[in-house]
């Protein structure tokens, strides 16, 4: 009572006049939103004749930064010098450092050691036979974990043999075998620097943000210009793509090392180097291995894309098939990548979880018992190496024994198209006409100035001036480089896909969270989904719906589904069990328990799931440029094919800006929500 009398008089008057106004006056943000949206609506409807520039950004005002970057890049390659050496010499040196070990691994796994050049080359030492490689992976599986892992690995590699993907797979494996360790080491060193120096961490964090949000195509161009069209370029691009999470995980893992352990290091008098390599890194190893797993998976994700700038192997096969519209061949090679991904994923996960061996009572006396797997592998390599000389089938799997599924896939596509063409086509057309195209038209008709200002308001209401300024500056940057319309197409496709992914994924997540058995099935399913390289999603989609926005949308939804499910289920499952019990004791029905307790508390986590869904959608969307979307992704792809560095980078940065705006807004919202719930 006392506090109502303290309120300003006019508020009480409005309160008596209308409850709606009273509600609004107590919530200035809501009021501001209503006024702003109304104003934007009026401007959108009537403003075009008055201020055309606010709808279509005049070309004369455009900032031609793209050309300048391209020019700078040319200068860098042709003229830049660091005194002792030129920039071109620097890139050649890096190139040599990567190429040398790659050639060795490639010789071992695929080509054999050659003498002489080109077609005159003579093989001196053959590569490892397929039997030897399979035997090695089986031994590694046994050594790292158990016979189950071993059987899985052996099965995966035998699949590659039997289905005729061996040669390409070994080329791919060679580049992975170089890109992953190099990427891990470089990322580890950067991460250690970041751990040591707060200043350095502050400097690299935004760079990492950009590296993870700028679409791959954008930096393929400068890499291509610097290193040329060859496997080295592909590995450099792969490393750039795969490193950021490892850098972050390294910093996190080192920070998580208990204070007691670092104190111990100091107390026994460790030097800085000893502290890093004898105390910190070994203690953080389990977490670091999670990072290594990430690097492997991201590298595999890049296999196909990297073949655009010179990687051979399975990725090249997929890309070539896709270009020929040879669906069967594409699927065969695509599945082979998935098989390789599954094998390497399970192997690296097992290595991450592997505890140091248990104590051994006695030291074995002879070398066979001490290193049984190593001895076994050496024996197989030697025996098959010699036997391969006499019988080619041991060296190379006989082609006559391979099985091909290509024609089968081709037949399947033909069958589906003959029998279901009308249904699929009418479904596609209905969605296009009623949802996709109207939404796209609506977004394209919006005045950019209103969108920029509304984003600013959103930023202000969630995170005050800093966020407001960030949103407005980034969105205006997209306007000023003249990519507004393309950006709107990106937002339209991304928005629709995200909504669809959430509509499908969140109910699945909610259901799975309530039922342990269902959860286990769903978890396996989404784990597998996330193992698939993004490119693989395109194949069946193109097969069924051909090229266009609709196909892109389906692929994006499929790719972005996993986080929507995972975060929802995880959010609900991690609600404090005491609160759930409190709800039950208070007499909630299961439905009330879900809506009034669990979902409310899981909301911040679900928001983060939405965030991840958006991030994955954007990264997939760029790749769908290959199936004919007309958005920022296509812009980067065009830049790639014409080697226009600047345009690619600018379009890529625009995608990153969209991602950053969405990320910061959602994060700020989730943080506020969490603070209100007292979860932090």
């Amino acid at each position: 009572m006392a506090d109502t009398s303290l309120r300003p008089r006019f508020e009480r008057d409005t309160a008596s006049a209308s409850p709606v106004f009273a509600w609004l006056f107590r919530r200035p943000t809501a009021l501001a939103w209503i006024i702003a949206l109304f104003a934007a609506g009026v401007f959108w409807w009537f403003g075009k004749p008055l201020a055309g520039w606010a709808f279509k950004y005049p070309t004369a005002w455009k900032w031609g930064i793209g050309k300048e970057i391209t020019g700078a890049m040319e200068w860098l390659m042709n003229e830049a010098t660091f005194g002792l050496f030129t920039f071109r010499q620097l890139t050649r040196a890096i190139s040599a450092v990567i190429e040398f070990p790659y050639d060795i691994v490639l010789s071992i796994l695929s080509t054999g050691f050659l003498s002489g050049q080109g077609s005159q080359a003579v093989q001196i030492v053959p590569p490892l036979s397929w039997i030897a490689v399979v035997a090695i992976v089986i031994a590694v599986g046994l050594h790292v974990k158990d016979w189950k892992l071993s059987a899985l690995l052996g099965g995966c590699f035998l699949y590659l043999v039997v289905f005729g993907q061996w040669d390409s797979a070994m080329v791919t494996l060679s580049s992975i075998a170089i890109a992953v360790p190099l990427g891990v080491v470089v990322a580890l060193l950067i991460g250690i620097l970041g751990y040591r120096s707060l200043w350095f961490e502050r400097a690299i964090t935004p760079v990492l943000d950009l590296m993870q949000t700028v679409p791959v195509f954008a930096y393929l161009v400068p890499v291509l210009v610097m290193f040329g069209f060859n496997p080295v370029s592909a590995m450099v691009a792969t490393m750039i793509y795969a490193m950021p999470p490892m850098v972050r995980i390294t910093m996190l893992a080192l920070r998580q090392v208990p204070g007691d352990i670092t104190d111990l290091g100091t107390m026994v008098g460790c030097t800085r180097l000893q502290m890093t390599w004898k105390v910190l890194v070994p203690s953080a190893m389990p977490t670091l291995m999670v990072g290594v797993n990430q690097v492997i998976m991201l590298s595999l994700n890049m296999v196909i894309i990297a073949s655009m700038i010179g990687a051979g192997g399975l990725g090249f096969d997929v890309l070539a098939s896709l270009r020929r519209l040879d669906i069967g061949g594409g699927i065969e090679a695509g599945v082979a990548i998935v098989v390789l991904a599954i094998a390497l994923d399970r192997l690296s996960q097992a290595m991450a979880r592997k505890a140091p061996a248990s104590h051994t009572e006695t030291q074995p006396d002879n070398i066979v018992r001490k290193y049984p797997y190593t001895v076994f592998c050496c024996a197989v390599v030697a025996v098959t190496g010699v036997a391969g000389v006499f019988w080619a089938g041991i060296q190379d799997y006989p082609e006559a024994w391979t099985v091909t599924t290509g024609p089968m896939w081709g037949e399947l596509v033909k069958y589906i198209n003959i029998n279901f063409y009308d249904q699929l086509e009418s479904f596609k057309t209905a969605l296009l006409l009623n949802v996709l195209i109207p939404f796209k038209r609506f977004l394209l008709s919006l005045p950019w100035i209103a969108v920029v200002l509304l984003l600013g308001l959103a930023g202000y209401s969630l995170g005050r001036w800093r966020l407001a300024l960030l949103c407005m500056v980034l969105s205006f940057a997209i306007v000023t480089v003249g990519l507004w319309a393309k950006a709107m197409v990106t937002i339209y496709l991304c928005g629709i896909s995200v909504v669809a992914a959430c509509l499908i994924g969140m109910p699945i997540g909610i259901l799975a969270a309530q039922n342990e058995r269902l959860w286990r099935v769903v978890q396996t399913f989404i784990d597998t989904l996330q193992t698939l390289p993004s490119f693989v999603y395109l194949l069946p989609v193109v097969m069924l719906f051909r090229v266009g926005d609709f196909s892109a949308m389906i692929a994006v939804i499929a790719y972005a589904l996993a986080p929507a499910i995972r975060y929802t289920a995880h959010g609900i499952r991690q609600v404090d069990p005491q609160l759930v019990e409190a709800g039950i004791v208070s007499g909630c029905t299961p439905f009330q328990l879900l809506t009034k307790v669990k979902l409310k508390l899981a909301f911040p986590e679900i928001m983060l799931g939405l965030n991840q869904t958006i991030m994955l959608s954007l990264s997939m969307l760029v790749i769908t440029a290959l199936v004919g979307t007309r958005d920022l992704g296509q812009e980067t792809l065009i830049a790639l094919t014409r080697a226009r560095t600047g345009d690619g980078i600018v379009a890529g940065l625009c995608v990153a800006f969209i991602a950053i705006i969405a990320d910061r807004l959602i994060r700020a919202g989730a943080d506020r929500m969490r603070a209100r719930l007292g979860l932090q």
Partner: protein
Amino acid sequence: MAERAEKLVCNAVWKLFGPGAESFLGKADRSHSIDDIKQAGLIGAVRDASITVLEGEIFVIMGLSGSGKSTLVRCMSRLIEPTAGEILFDGQDLLQATAREMVEIRRHKMGMVFQHFALLPHLTVLGNVAFPLEVQGVDRSVREARAREIIELVGLEGRETYYPRELSGGQQQRVGIARSLAVEPELWFLDEPFSALDPLIRREMQDEFLRLQNVLHKTIVFITHDFDEAIRLADRVAIMKDGGIDQIGTPEDLVVRPATDYVAEFTKDVSRAKVLSIASVMAPAPDQAPKGGYGGEVPVGIKIGEAARQIGALDRPFAVIGGDGQLVGQVTREAVVEALIQG
């Protein structure tokens, strides 16, 4: 008691956390109360702590969580840089030592045991114990031989090839103790070494610790939040509260003459008979031996509780004998009973 050398001296050590801590300390006369410090937006972890640890004694720093005891012990080894003060180790001011000198001092003269063991998960028991020597660059065979000796000393022989995760908590802390002793330190810090163990094991480890000290005679700074542990193990105790030191004294001093209400609060429930020596209840010996002679002899240092049964059995006073065999006083059954009744 023979005069012992001063091994470690802390003079007016301060540790304040927060921006501008040094200028805050510099400008005033350093008699800041905890409230002054809070007002300046700082956290006063250690305030004006002065401690002298004598060679060969067990010096226990006791305080509840947040009292600054862990910060103080970390200041002593410069794991944490004190904001102000002086720390003299064998007369050398550690705060003036260069980083290199500190590394040498830590490598050869200090050992530390941690509350949560801080064992390196990737090394075996042997590797962990030998680790301080490995860091110094000692040859593998030499350091492993040394490690094996200490592992035997702490009773873990046969477990050399085990990994930390394969051991129980008590065993893990034995490894921690062995590791801290590997370099034969002169100064041994134990930071709540038994707090993470369950009560039965804790008791066992305390006995083990006393046994080791009987053999080794190290200078020990022992941190605990457990008052019973403090009076059980300590030669002398410092009680800390809000970063300051409330009282330093022998367990007996604390019980008989608590300096503050805070200390009295701790000692209230302590069984006096276990802490007080017979000297605190003895009367001066009369010139003549009592009628019927003394019932027997007790040493002056014995705790009342330990002598009670013997003295209570006879209705005659007992002679109290000093360290050199001289009669220093007498004690009657009534005096002992009185002390026992007081609790």
